[in-house]
């Protein structure tokens, strides 16, 4: 028997310091008792994908030296208003506990959580070396909370409010950054609605010489942009404000000159209300751009084509479907480094297509861009043939999300379900980690997915399948599945109960408007101690209806923290004592 070499603790710690990925850190901690101990003391970054999977107390006890914490709250389908207001995900208990335990906390990244002004105030006062605050799709706070962060966090490097919902009563928060603040590297407030003080902004940008990311909101008019750019020629990532003004030659030349001075720009976004006449001002930076987000830019095909054809280094493009098929052809021809493409619908509610964007555009890009691996594509028609072509072209695909706007739309050529097409995707793309399906789909597609989707980690379904066998195939076949979200599919009790153990290996399962009965939920909750089985039902207590009545929404997730205690009155946890809680 070969003996293990015994390392001094500091040596192992030093080795671990080169191992950063969450997966590897988790693996280290499961090797043996001594590695577990050493690892937990030198873990500085933590990612918690579901804030209810563990409690602050357990976290703090296990990892005493955290500097960076990331937390996610509501399930993904909250983005589509499928999670009622007041569901939960309040970060305050975490911040309160960490304020005591981690006075040296530097970074907090939250997604889909409820953050109050009090919380922001507490953050700003509790962590002396606080550097990074990222609030992604969060809500519950106002600019008053931001003012506290600005005023009190002396070493703030990053403040990023992506897509959060923020009330903006006074609009003066930016002025709360003290004149002594020069540490900002990243400032993103694109989601704010109110005005900011331009002079405060200009002074702030001017004195933060390390500023690399600046994303403005719509309230910043175009004529303010040149001054800002001149003060920050080192910018790498810019989000413009409104990109439209009356046509004034002197504004145009100022703008063009300012962009010319930004030699480091790699990423552009913003572009609300674009006036095409001002677009050529950015042409000088196009060749160096790796990321371009035009998803708010309502510019039409020809202008888009002119723009995109100059961005030969582009790796990521987010754009509205105004780009149309021929725009995507140009993209395929010009941008050989493209890795990620997202095409959003400009008018999803109209019955008839308003643009000429079909499956062909995506096929073109899949042919022309050898590095394409991440796709989010909204369109109105799709065929199995196209999907097969895409699959064959791009076996390196890792994320594939297709949204055919009309639910249950068949292959428009053959009128068949799209099972074979998606089957081809999972079969050819062996590294596929994320998949969203749409269109007419039977249980057959789930056979394919269960057979081939071995690396699939996240799957989103809507209006698909015929019955329980579909769900059973997914749960039993997809070995790497961690998140499954389902709406309006005819999946019921049997598949769920037969695969109850699988649910413990996943982060979460969401099912809404399916056929899961209240009785099955109860059974699942009672049998599976390590799962929180939550029924969300706004019709009232589920047991006021028969056991075989379907629940509105079901959210199942594994947890070591037990049932959560902050449930609103429309959420019930199914467990042993469920029946008693109601009496």
């Amino acid at each position, binding site marked *: 028997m070969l003996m*293990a070499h015994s*390392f*001094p603790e500091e*040596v192992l710690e*030093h*080795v671990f310091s080169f191992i950063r990925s969450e*997966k*590897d850190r988790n*693996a280290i*901690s*499961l090797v*043996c*008792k001594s*590695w577990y101990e050493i690892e937990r003391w030198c873990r500085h970054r*933590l990612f*918690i*994908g579901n804030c209810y999977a563990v409690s*602050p107390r357990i976290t703090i006890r296990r990892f005493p030296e955290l500097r960076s914490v990331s937390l996610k709250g509501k399930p993904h389908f909250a*983005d*589509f*208003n*499928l999670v009622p207001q007041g569901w939960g995900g*309040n970060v305050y*208990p975490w911040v*309160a*506990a960490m304020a*005591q335990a981690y006075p040296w906390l530097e970074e907090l990244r939250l997604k889909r959580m409820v953050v109050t002004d009090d919380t922001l105030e507490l953050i700003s006062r509790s962590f002396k070396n606080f550097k990074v605050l990222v609030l992604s799709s969060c809500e519950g706070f106002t600019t008053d909370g931001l003012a506290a962060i600005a005023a009190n966090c002396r070493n703030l490097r990053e403040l990023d409010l992506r*897509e959060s*919902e923020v009330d903006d009563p006074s609009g003066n928060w930016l002025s709360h950054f003290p004149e002594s603040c020069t540490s900002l590297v990243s400032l993103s407030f694109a989601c704010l609605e109110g005005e900011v003080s331009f002079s405060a902004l200009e002074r702030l940008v001017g004195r933060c010489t390390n500023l690399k990311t600046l994303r403005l909101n*719509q309230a910043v008019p175009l004529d303010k942009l040149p001054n800002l750019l001149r003060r920050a020629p080192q910018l790498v990532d810019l989000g413009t404000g409104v990109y439209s003004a009356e046509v004034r030659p002197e504004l145009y030349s100022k703008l063009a000159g300012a962009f010319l001075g930004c030699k480091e720009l790699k990423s552009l976004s913003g572009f609300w209300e674009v006036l095409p006449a001002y677009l050529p001002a950015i042409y000088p930076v196009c060749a160096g751009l790796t990321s371009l987000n035009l998803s*708010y830019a*309502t510019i039409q095909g020809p202008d888009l084509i002119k723009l995109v054809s100059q961005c030969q280094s582009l790796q990521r493009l987010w754009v509205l479907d105004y780009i149309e098929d021929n725009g995507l052809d140009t993209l395929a021809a010009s941008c050989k480094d493209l890795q990620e493409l997202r095409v959003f619908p400009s008018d*999803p*509610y109209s019955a008839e297509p308003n643009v000429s964007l079909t499956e062909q555009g995506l096929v073109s890009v899949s042919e022309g861009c050898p590095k394409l691996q991440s796709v*989010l594509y909204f369109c109105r028609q799709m065929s199995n043939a196209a999907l097969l072509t895409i699959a064959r072209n791009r076996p390196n695909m890792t994320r594939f999300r297709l*949204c055919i*706007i*009309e*639910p249950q739309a068949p292959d428009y050529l053959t009128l068949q379900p799209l099972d074979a097409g998606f089957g081809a995707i999972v079969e050819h793309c062996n590294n596929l*980690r*994320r998949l969203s399906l749409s269109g007419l789909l039977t249980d057959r597609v789930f056979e394919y997915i269960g057979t081939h989707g071995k690396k699939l980690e*996240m799957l989103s379904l809507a209006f698909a399948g015929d*019955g329980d066998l579909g769900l*059973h195939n997914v749960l039993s076949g997809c070995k790497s599945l961690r*998140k499954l979200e389902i*709406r309006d599919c*005819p999946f*019921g009790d049997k598949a769920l109960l*037969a695969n109850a153990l699988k649910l413990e290996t996943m982060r979460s399962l969401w099912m809404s*408007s*399916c056929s899961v*009965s209240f009785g099955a939920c109860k059974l699942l909750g009672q049998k599976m*101690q390590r799962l929180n089985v939550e029924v969300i039902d706004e*019709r009232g207590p589920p047991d006021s209806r028969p056991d*075989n009545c379907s629940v509105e929404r079901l959210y199942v997730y594994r947890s070591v923290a*037990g049932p959560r205690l902050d449930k609103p009155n429309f959420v019930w946890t199914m467990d*042993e*004592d469920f029946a*008693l809680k109601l*009496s």
Partner: protein
Amino acid sequence: MSEGEMAIIKPEVMKSYIWLQTADGSIQQVEEEVAMFCPMICREILQTGMGSSKNYAISLPQKVNPTTLSLILDYCRFHQLPGRSNKERKSFDEKFIRIDTKRLCELTSAADSLQLKPLVDLTSRALARMIEGKTPEEIRETFHLPDDLTEEEKLEPLRNTADDLRIRLLNRLYARKRKELKEKQKMKNVEVEEERVDDRSVDDLLSFINGGDGGFEGVRAPKNKKKNQRRKGHSKDPSTNDVNKNHKEMDDLSSACCKEDESGNVFMASHSKAAKLKVAVDGFPPKVEFDDGDIDDELDPAMKEELDREVEDFARRLNSDWPERMQEILSLGQDRKLVSISMNGNGSLRRYTSLERR
């Protein structure tokens, strides 16, 4: 021969050597400039004057055995020459660490004990690369480590969530209620229905499934909670009047509740096509990636052993110093408040907590 003649004939004799002794007793000599490259040896020489002769050899730390010392000295001999280019050094390093795992481990520890930081970094990185991407089992195999975490520690022992104060209290309340209920039922002489345990095998279930459940065709639009959306064309909900109207119809239908069909499935009354949700699964998503977090792995597998520890701790404490436990509870974070503590008749403490709501 005179000294001068010796110098001409054997210039190498004038080169300085340092004498080093490893833990096994063996002694060797090394060129001075090579030995001085190790901070620990360098310090020994300068501070204690040791190493200048065989009798006064510098004792090296225990982790440095002769084989490892030889390797380390090769490293020092190469790198102490100032004339080498970065490319040469890098190339040397890459070849240097291509040794078997056992040697690499020994080398790392030895370099650490000699405080030879560049070599410690080099070997540590090499070890890190060997660890990355492996499963715990594979790592154990590579380094011959014991598999001494218990199954409970590796999995998630949620047997006893009662370590949380509030949950303990709740459990106590429920236990009492359960008792009360049982007694009520006894008194009513009502048969307590056996809990339906589904212990059919998966195969049974599968054949049931394959036997063809009725399909379900109900489609229900989600609740319409439209937030204030300024994004053009990107509202997260169908907001046309038609759809709203149909939603209301749906709500009426759904509150009229469920019908059961023959196979035991429940379906909702179907509705007109107009109300069918126009929003596909990924409609109008937020345009952000969260550090690719949706794909990243998370804490769960690794924290699974925590709870067993907690249970152990809790049981131990419960059996010993009760007042100590109270202290700890009192000093815990703000998400708990002890409202009142009272003693009941037989002297045991009863705690009441308010459930903090935010």
